[in-house]
């Protein structure tokens, strides 16, 4: 079987969606770890040094562009599958079972994924684009001049509506990963009584609750500090 055929069936596409999804799960851990530097009370030094490192290291730049391609592959294939799935039932039911036969989260993957995609575009424009191509005030630590990304973040999150957009984005992330993380394992055929409990726990508590909460806390804390 050719590779092109292997990835062109419904299961083949799902394998790509699952693999890219799990890669993105690993990314959010790294991203959150870096972002937590925003909460450090050092006037932004730790975060600015981190931001400068992330935007200059060659390997990280390579991975960062790969990441954008991974997001696109994940979104395009998932949307393609979703449209096909919708088309598979041309006449809809008059009465639907609701939550009686499946979890609400498992049925909202496309909606939550779309919210997340819109959020990612807004987020990249807000910060990534400005860090790389925009004008930012300089700041120097021990003679080395860096872009003051910390200040840009502080200014952005003084606006309540931006904070609300970020919180909504993280609710989208949470609801997407509650089902998404464990679903990827099932797609890879990894379903085993011995590990299902652990996979479910990590999916719901780590990726569904802890990580989105960690992200969402940052703009909320910055906002409340700014109005004090």
């Amino acid at each position, binding site marked *: 079987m050719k590779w092109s055929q292997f990835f062109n069936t419904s299961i083949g596409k*799902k394998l790509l969606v699952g693999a890219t999804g799990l890669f993105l799960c690993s990314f959010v851990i790294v991203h959150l770890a870096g972002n937590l530097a925003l909460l450090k009370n050092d006037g932004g030094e730790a975060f600015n040094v981190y931001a400068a490192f992330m935007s200059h290291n060659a390997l990280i730049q390579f991975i960062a562009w790969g990441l954008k391609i991974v997001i696109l592959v994940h979104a395009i294939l998932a949307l393609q599958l979703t449209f096909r*799935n919708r088309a*598979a039932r041309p006449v809809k039911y008059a009465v639907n079972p609701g939550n009686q*036969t*499946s979890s609400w989260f498992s049925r909202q993957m496309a909606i939550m994924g779309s919210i997340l995609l819109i959020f990612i575009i807004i987020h990249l424009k807000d910060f990534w684009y400005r860090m790389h191509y925009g004008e930012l005030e300089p700041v120097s630590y021990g003679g080395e001049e860096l872009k003051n990304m910390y200040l840009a973040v502080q200014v952005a999150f003084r606006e309540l509506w931006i904070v609300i957009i970020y919180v909504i984005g993280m609710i989208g992330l949470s609801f997407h990963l509650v*089902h998404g993380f464990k679903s990827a394992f099932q797609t890879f055929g*990894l379903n085993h009584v011995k590990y299902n409990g652990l996979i479910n726990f990590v999916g719901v508590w780590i990726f569904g609750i802890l990580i989105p909460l960690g992200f969402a806390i940052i703009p909320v804390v910055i906002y409340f500090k700014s109005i004090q």
Partner: protein
Amino acid sequence: MEHYNMNLTLKVWRQKNTNAQGQFESYQVPGVSSEMSFLEMFDVLNERLINEGKEPVAFDHDCREGICGACSMHINGRAHGPWAGTTTCQLHMRAFKDGDTITVEPWRSGSFPVVKDLTVDRGAFDRIIEAGGYVSVNTGNAQDANNILVPKDDADAAFAAAACIGCGACVAACKNSSAMLFVSAKVSQLALLPQGQPEKKSRALNMIAQMDKEGFGSCTNTGACEAECPKEISLTNIARLNREYIAAGLTYEK
């Protein structure tokens, strides 16, 4: 359980043929016994419609003992009605109470076209089986049964998968009209046994190719199929089908 009679309102999908536009029609069905099966309640309604010179409601049924998989009715939003692990013929009217309105629809899937009223064409399943859901056996004398040893656990798992009656409830219940539970059961029952090994790779690939060709949706692991399956086929079969696909797709030379 106490016997009781009830008066019901049925909202039934009526459709003349595959190409006709269908619509719901309401029927009052008085004096339904709680001891009747759901299909017997339809028999009562149809007797009356025939006596009144009207067209009876077409629905599939055969064994009426829960093993043939013919009785495809989507009842109040649930494949085979509200009870778990039952076909429509095994659903009894004690699941309902006096004054209930019950909505009955055919399986909804582009791959299962409505033939008439509640009857759908499940030929797509037959074509998936034709694509690889078999073991090629040379004719000749039967071998000694113990020639090929099968571990008991494997035999049990294969038997559990083989319990699939091909009713299509998985497709009907899935928000994507996915046939993965059906295909996974039919692949698993052979993949688990030594006799299924020689055609293992081509079977998985060909059956999945046919499943896609028939226009079924893809699985998003919601688990609705497992919840509605009258034979309680497990989602672990879908994981096995995915493994079969990966193993075959990565190594099959054709």
